[in-house]
Every structure is written in C-alpha cells, then in structure tokens.
C-alpha cells in the first residue's frame, strides 16, 4: 500500500446513480481482483473505500454509487482533477483457487470485482459464469465488458423487469458450478453462501483507515479475529462466521 496522486481521466454516469471513474497514475502495485482503493475527498474527514473495477499499467477504474455526500461530491468531479488515493488495499480474491466451473455472483454495486476476476480467469484460460442481481432494469451495470470477454451474464431483477425475477440466487439456480466468488450486501452474501459448495466472499464494512491500523472493521472468523480492510475484504467460505 502507498499513497498516490491520481488524475481523473473520465467520470461519467453509467446508470441514474452509478458513475464510472478512470484514474491515471502509478497503479503498478495492484496485485489481485477484489482489492480496493481509498480516496481522500476535500471537505470529508474519512477516505472513501471503493473496489477496483479494472486496471492496467498506469490506470485504475472504479464504479461507485453516488449514495452519500462524499460520493455525490465525487460524481461532480471533472477530468484533470487529482485525487489523493491509498492503493492497493485488501487481500483480493485468490484466483488460483478457482475451478474451471467457477461462478461469479454479485448483487448491485458488488459487480466491479467480478469483472476483475473474470478478466484474470479468462487470461488463464478459464471462462467463468457470471450471475448478477439488480433491483430493476435501470440499475443494471454495464455488461459489455463481460461480453467482450465472451461471457453473457445471467441477470436477475427483484421486480422482474429484466431477466430472472428475483435475487441473484434465483439466477444461480439455472447454472452449474462448483466454486463461487461473490460480492454484495451482507444479506445477499449470506444467501449466496447457502448456495455455494466452496468459494470466496468479499465483505463490505465501514472503515476508519482501510490499512489495518484502527481496528474499526474487525470481524470474527473461524481462524480468529480479522480486519476486513487488510486480512479481507475477501474471506474463504470455510472461515466465515455469520
């Protein structure tokens, strides 16, 4: 982890409340999908931890929901502005554990790390299946990046306006898999947990520092207390205690 000054190259809405931001600068230390960056915003004391969506040498991108004052302020930023960012944070998904029949399952804004895993798996010759849950058709995040990898995500919407009616677990029922990587709100993670033979889960929690110093995001696991920010946000299925 280190602090980098990144420059906004693009900041555009992809749905009514979700933005895509591309940042340029030194991102070489990013080592695994599911890691996150922690962004300092003028006028706000705590940084905003946000999952990495995609990255290559010299740039990183995120999808973020403009839910609170901080992320709304982010959505008003323009290309050329710079951001003080800590990166990379968190352990990330261990893609080497994924099987040839891996399913990537996410709810809402839990989707970005799934794209990172998909990209990494495809580079290793594995094409994962992808199941995504959203509230309604308008909330569906960009699917083209998955299609460019040769993956057609199975979509569930809670109101049935697109794809399977129901939750991501309803979309999962149509698929055949033996390993799952998942990210989303805790209630969704718990539901997916019940449907996964084995796999990895990405947890979200309010954080103080994001790099392991404050103990603000500790959780109990079968192997002792862990910090979501540093020992996570990815936990293995067999260590999770609900």
């Amino acid at each position, binding site marked *: 982890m280190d*602090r980098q000054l990144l420059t906004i190259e693009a900041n555009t809405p992809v749905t009514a409340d979700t933005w895509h931001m591309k940042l340029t600068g030194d991102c070489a230390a990013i080592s695994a999908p599911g890691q996150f960056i922690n962004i*300092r915003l003028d006028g*706000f*004391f705590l940084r905003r931890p946000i999952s990495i969506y995609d990255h290559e040498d010299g740039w990183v991108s995120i999808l973020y929901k403009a839910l609170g004052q901080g992320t709304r302020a982010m959505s008003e930023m323009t290309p050329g502005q710079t951001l003080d960012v800590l990166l990379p944070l968190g352990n990330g998904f261990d893609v080497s554990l994924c099987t040839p029949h891996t399913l990537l399952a996410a709810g809402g804004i839990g989707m970005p790390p799934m794209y990172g895993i998909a990209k990494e798996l495809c580079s290793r010759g594995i094409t994962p299946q992808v199941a995504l849950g959203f509230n309604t058709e308008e909330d569906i995040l960009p699917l083209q990046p998955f299609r460019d990898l040769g993956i057609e995500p199975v979509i569930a919407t809670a109101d049935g306006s697109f794809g399977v009616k129901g939750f991501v677990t309803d979309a999962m029922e149509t698929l055949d898999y033996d390993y799952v990587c998942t990210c989303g709100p805790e209630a969704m993670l718990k539901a997916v947990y019940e449907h996964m033979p084995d796999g990895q889960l990405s947890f979200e929690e*309010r954080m103080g*520092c994001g790099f392991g110093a404050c103990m603000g995001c*500790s959780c109990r696991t079968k192997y002792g*207390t862990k910090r979501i920010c540093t020992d996570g946000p990815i936990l293995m299925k067999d260590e999770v205690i609900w």
Partner: protein
Amino acid sequence: MPNGSNTKQNPLATELCGLKLDNPVIPASGTFGYGQEFAKLYDINILGSISFKGTTLHERYGNPLPRIAETPSGMLNAVGLQNPGVDHVIAHELPEFKKIYHKPLVANISGFSIDEYTETAEKLDAEDQVGILEINISCPNVHNGGMSFGTSPEAAAEVTAAVKKVTHKPVFMKLTPNVTDITEIAKACEDAGADGISMINTLLGMRIDKKKRTPLLANQTGGLSGPAVFPVAVRMVWQTARAVKIPIIGMGGISSADDVIEMMMAGASAVEVGAANLVNPYACKEIIEDLPRAMKELNIDRLADIIGAAL
C-alpha cells in the same frame, strides 16, 4: 536504547520525566497499531515515541460493527479496546515492534478493575522497551470500566496510587474530557503520585442512521476525534497546565506542525497525533518534517522553550 539528542543540539527535542525525546510527536494509542503498517511506508524511528494499542489484562474482541462513523472534521469510533491481552502483547507484539522501532515506547493500559490495571501495568513495567506507562482511565467505549475510573477524582486517584505502587516507570494518567472539570481529576492524579497527564481522550458523541432511524454505531455512542476536537483539547490542556506541576502529553485533533506548537504553548511537553494517522498514514512524518518551518515562522529556536508559553 538511544535516548535521543540533547536539547542543545536538537531544536525539536523535548523531555517527559527524564525521558528524552528527539521530537514531541507521538502517534496516539489505537491509531498506530503496533507500528507495522506504518513501518512499511517510512522509517518510524523518526517518531519521538509511539503509544501502542491499548492493552488489557485479558484479550478483548471489542464492540460489534459498525465501530466507525464520519463527522464534520472528524470521526466517531467505538472500537472497544480490541487487543490480544498483555501476555500476548509481551510475547508477540513487542518483539515484532523491536525489529522496527528502537526507542522507548509508551504502553497504553486499560482495565475493568483496579487489579486489572495493576497486573497489566506490572507486566509492562518489566519490559525494557517500555519507557512510559499511560494509564487509560478514559475510554468512553467500554462499560463498567474505562471511563468510569476517570470521571471521579477519588476513583482516578485510587487507580493512580495502585499503579504507582507496582511500577517504577513514569506513570501518565490519560484523562477523559467527558467531565465537568478535568483539572480536578488531574489534580487528584497528581496528588496520588502520577508523574504526568495524557489528555484528552475522545469526546462522547453519536450519529443517527437516518434510514434505519437508529444510532449508527452498534455501541450507540462513540468517541469523537479529529480536528473538530482540537480547540477543546487546547483549552483543557491550558487549564490543566495551570492546575498541575507534572508534565502533560497533549492530544486531540492535532494534524499539523502548527497544531503541535499551539498545543505546546498551551502547556504540553509532548503531543500525541491520533485520527490524522488514519486518513494520512504519513501524518506524523509530515508534521515532524514541517516543524522547523513552523518554528522559523514563529521565531522559535528550541521547541522546549515554548512549553506553556501561553499560560
């Protein structure tokens, strides 16, 4: 163990009960862990000292989540003294600390009874790495302990006297601002034999989750820290410095070299930097590096000269 430079040669040097510090900047307990995360970013031996994560006799998981909330110019925390317990700290954390930090440490200690305070203090007093014992009688986030010892002069004096009996190192009592008159508590500690005062711990606060219509923190209340509390801390240090003769480690929202100077002018011999470390992991390093500039602007030759200058 190096004792730091002499004040005559080093304009940043200060002293706490005979313990010489290269500079007054000490990361505050609970914001710096055991130094490991920060040692990956810079040589933490530049720090005056380090107050490591609050230690209790027994292991503590701490409070349920969420433990953190943002506030205007600060944050609330209700971590609840998560730590592996004093025996584990001595067996594992201190040896690891020794590899990355070579100066005397401040050992921050909490308890839920007088016996827990004394037993923990006695164990840490025996460690060569420990230079100062900072007795936290002010944690707002634990029940039936912590702050309840710091809100009455009698209880504060009782903890102070008991810890002094079992230790040989300087004992600094860490006080809570959540009292009517902090100087009364400080005087009671001084009369009971305290070698110094650390102040202030966090201010009790609350945020509401407006969607759920419940307190945002699982613990309901939390301790406010960050720049928002700085003027409160300066006021309380100033009042306490006029009331006691023992040295004060001043803390509460310090986030710049100018804040350090202000806090020292209010009567602090050294300072602790807390919440700033969490949002800027280089905060302490940048403050130390910026002190010569801030001193020059104010015509300060030696930092030690300005301790209590505003009293």
